């Protein structure tokens, strides 16, 4: 019992979390040209193939052309992918192969601050990548609502949620190949079944509930779509609230699990 409560102990943090964030930002800036291109090309391909290609055979959804329906979802998907991969594969490489965390905790920065800095960076990656996707879908003539200005801050929140979940996996996997499990059992199903490419309501009711509660991309897609299309319904607020509740829980859990792994 004691060990369970210790997993949810709220850590003490200081401004030093940003020093870890800055380390990752500095590395990112060195290679931003190579980082930039994939995040730009991927949504273009999806919009071409699914929006224009497949969209020609699809009935309008809730009065929206299909491309309008999937475009905001692509923004949300990029939030998930960029933050989840940053805090699984990339963090694992820094932790395990590069021993970067070991080097940092020999300085006045604590392990709690290292992990927090990593997750804040994951959230930042979500913000950067999804903003690029947002720019792409605007360039494709989608989206008129001024509420879209709220999407970048939302991207940070969604990014933080997926970074925290990712970091929990990073804390427990024995090796880097094990990430295939969360990738195929969690991320891929979410990518396909979170109301991204078709409305959630076309699935059996039980799956809808599962998606709402256990597949956080559903919440992210709902809120992003609401902001992009400028229609804030009660469900948008509910999904936002759910993410605001779940994020701190995984955030604290991730820090304590990593501490357990690294401090012997």
């Amino acid at each position: 019992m004691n060990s369970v409560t210790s997993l949810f102990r709220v850590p003490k943090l200081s401004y030093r979390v940003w020093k870890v964030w800055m380390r990752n930002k500095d590395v990112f800036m060195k290679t931003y040209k190579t980082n930039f291109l994939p995040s730009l090309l991927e949504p273009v391909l999806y919009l071409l193939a699914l929006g224009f290609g497949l969209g020609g055979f699809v009935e309008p959804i809730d009065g929206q052309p299909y491309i309008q329906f999937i475009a905001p979802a692509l923004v949300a998907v990029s939030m998930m992918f960029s933050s989840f991969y940053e805090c699984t594969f990339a963090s694992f490489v820094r932790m395990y192969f590069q021993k970067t965390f070991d080097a940092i905790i020999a300085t006045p920065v604590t392990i709690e601050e290292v992990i927090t800095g990593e997750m804040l960076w994951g959230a930042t990656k979500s913000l950067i990548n999804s903003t690029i996707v947002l720019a792409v879908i605007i360039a494709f003539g989608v989206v008129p609502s001024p509420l879209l200005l709220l999407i970048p801050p939302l991207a940070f929140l969604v990014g933080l949620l997926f970074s925290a979940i990712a970091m929990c996996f990073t804390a427990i996997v024995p090796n880097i190949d094990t990430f295939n499990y969360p990738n195929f059992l969690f991320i891929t199903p979410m990518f396909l079944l979170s109301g991204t490419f078709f409305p959630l309501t076309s699935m059996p009711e039980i799956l809808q509930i599962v998606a709402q509660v256990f597949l956080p991309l559903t919440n992210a897609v709902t809120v992003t779509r609401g902001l992009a299309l400028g229609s804030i319904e009660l469900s948008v607020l509910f999904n936002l609230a759910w993410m605001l509740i779940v994020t701190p829980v995984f955030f604290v859990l991730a820090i304590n699990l990593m501490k357990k792994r690294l401090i012997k």
Partner: protein
Amino acid sequence: MTQEVLVEAENLTKKFGSLVAVDGISFKIFKGESFGFLGPNGAGKTTTMKMIQAVSPLTKGKLTLAGLDVTEHGREIKGIVGVAPQEDTLDPDFTVFQNLIVYARYFDIPKEKAKTKADELLKFMQLNEKRDVVITALSGGMRRRLILARALMNEPQILILDEPTTGLDPQARHLIWTKIRNLQKNGVTVILTTHYMDEAAQLCDRIIIMDHGKIIVKGKPADMVKMHVGEEVLEVLYSEEAMSCLRQYFPDARFDVVGDKIQVFADKQRGVLAKVLEEAQFKGAVIRDSNLEDVFLKLAGRSLRD
């Protein structure tokens, strides 16, 4: 040397599950001295270092650095300690110079000061030509020197070196030794671990030999050699006759058979062995100065640990 205690451990204990890695050791390290931890693999040296640098929590006991308790003042302690870890923890995403700058940021060192300090240290470690090279292009010796430079960025009072020259060629080792001695002259307290006995004899004022988590002996290297194995060792090619003959000459001595050689630890005054050698003609006989390695092997035994 002023005898101000800088590091004090009392009954320091570390357990990993049922394994006792450090088993209730006590020691004092004085300001300005060079203190060595020796021992075979798994003796508990690195675990002790990790506790001193406030990274690994104690299971039991008390440990203070500069009067600060490691359990409560981890952050302050890390600010005054410089660590050159055993593992290569350099950041491969950065150049040599950037490694130092990014590291300095964790200590809140202002950027301009960090740049000056980094260039100064690269010069000191003879790495200034490699300033803007990526880490992956450095040789093993250069990497060790950079790790040492990085440990000095915060101008530490205490420098912890965990096996500073393991795996290096003789030139690189001697260069690192020279640098460490330079730092000692400037008043830095050095704590190091090694399993090279010559390194300990070269660098350390006092040493502790550990085995199975316990201290088996502590003192000054030269005293230790004198006390445990005597000043000289006689080595003779092994044969039954040689052995029985040696036993007659040295009834109280300790004999060690290593490979095809008999080592005789007779603990005699310098010169006594030479006289015996003049009388009796042993095959392949050599007299040499005894060293820390003899002490180490006597106390820790010859069996492999890994």
